[in-house]
């Protein structure tokens, strides 16, 4: 317990201006951070020897639509293997500008997790190298895990995609044309 207190104190000192609140629900350590300079905050958490949070466990988001402001919250689970400690970072993101700094320069594993958050919540990650949808298809309209996305909404059918450089076999088509020609039918 004392160890946890000293850890949170160190975080308080190092990130003083960025911290909005520190919570301790159910024995977890939760820090609510400001999204400005987020990457730098994570660098400090990772590289400060007393903290040593070297492992990014998970990135996800929660949509508090009509429940609280700002609307979104991006949630990071990080852990220190040496200190055997977990820490949860929550970062509020407003609805009118749903964007946040990407953590891919610090942890490359953030790539897929951030793509998933973009896909399902529509929160953009600044400086992400390849921000595409990951679970859904490119033509999908909307972001389904937002609370204002109806659960029974059907998506329009997508026309077949033309991919450049794809080999198309036209032999069967030509054969049909020849057959029609020999029979003297038009079209």
């Amino acid at each position, binding site marked *: 317990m004392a160890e946890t207190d000293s850890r949170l104190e160190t975080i308080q000192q190092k990130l003083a201006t960025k911290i909005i609140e520190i919570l301790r*629900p*159910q024995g*977890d350590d939760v820090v609510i951070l400001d999204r400005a300079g987020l990457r730098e905050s994570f660098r400090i958490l990772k590289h400060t020897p007393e903290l040593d949070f*070297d*492992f*990014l*466990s*998970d990135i*996800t988001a*929660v*949509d508090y639509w009509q*429940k609280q402001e700002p609307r979104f919250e991006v*949630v990071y*689970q990080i852990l220190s*293997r040496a200190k*055997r400690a*977990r820490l*949860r970072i929550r970062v509020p993101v407003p609805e009118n500008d749903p964007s946040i700094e990407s953590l891919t320069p610090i*942890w*490359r*594993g*953030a*790539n*897929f*997790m951030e793509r*998933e958050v973009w896909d*399902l919540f529509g929160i953009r990650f600044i400086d992400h190298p390849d921000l595409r*949808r*990951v*679970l*859904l*298809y490119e033509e999908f309209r909307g972001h*389904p*895990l937002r609370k204002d996305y109806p*659960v029974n909404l059907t998506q329009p059918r997508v026309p077949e995609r033309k991919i450049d*450089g794809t080999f198309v076999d036209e032999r069967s088509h030509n054969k049909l044309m020849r057959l029609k020609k020999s029979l003297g039918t038009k079209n």
Partner: protein
Amino acid sequence: MKAEVKELPTEIMELQMGPSHPATHGTIKFNLKLEGEKVLDCDVEVGYLHRGFDKSCEQATWTQVIPYTDRLNYASPLINNVGYAMTVEKLIGAETPPRCQYIRVIISELSRIYDHLTCCGMASSELGAITPGFYMIEARELVTRIVEQLTGARLTVTYVRVGGVKHDLPDGFAEGVTRTFQTIRKLLDDCDLLLSRNRIFIDRLSNVGVISQETALNYSLTGPILRATGIGYDVRKAFPYLVYDQLDFEVPVGTRGDNYDRFICRIREIEQSMKIVEQALAQLPVGPVWIEDPRFVLPEKEKVYNSIEGLMHHFKIIMEGIHVPAGETYFAVEGGNGELGFYIVSDGGGRPYRIRVRPPCFIAMGAFHQMIKGYMVADIVPTFGMINMIGGECDR
């Protein structure tokens, strides 16, 4: 006439492998950039099995989510059940009785055996080692029979509840497990003779799909893939839950982080899991398997049919669901493929506000291009096989 030496033109070929490819389990597509047979780059496309797990959970009551978790990693549904139930219990602040905790350890380890046997058996038969593949599938079938005897279902078990397990172990369970483990050990010995020192098998796996310790940590890899690099991170040891701190077991680690080490790690873990189950069965205490809290536990059938209070109690729990206090929490267990975490948010109503699963194999697929870069097209099959990508969990 002087012979002219012409260089053959070379160009980078783009090849799409999957999703209808037997080695990709029908749920993954690799967009490869090839130079001859060498893989220059690989873009992994997942999501073919996406069915909106998170969104479905938000429509269900807390108990109705348990069947959905069965369908995440369907090679180890019991671990998913345990992970979810324990996360909700953490938010409630309830602690299950000792017998329930031991039963949860036993079923988790049985599931882990099943998971590793699936992975190793499938991966070896994909490489042409059909006989040991079938030996492992036979061993897996024996585990399935234990699970069926316990839960009544082979795959979609729905055995764990918030606050306990559905029912106690059946009669003769321990003897059945002991008998089964004898057979599994014999089958694994045969597989060991056929595979572990088999020249062809080693040539296909050794020094293929190598990933260094730093890269593995950078890509958030967990489970056998991380342990094969030599980092002994296991949630059961790092953040002990249930009664794992009272049981004696080791965490096997590799040295090089290649496919062969992953294979050996998994085989060694099966042995450790069997050891854990035997210890847990020997120490199994007597007592209830449910917490004693009427807010979360269904009343006995006798009360339901004979008293109005019992009937109302039953109706309330079934129709409204259990009430989880408002809050949010994260809890992780060691799944078959790594850290299986649940992040749940409750707004105090009868339904979850948000449920997020940390899927270990989705994150491993995010590092796949790093594992395969510079190797041959044929190396994709064992590398992908040793990740043990399960579509239900990867795509949710």
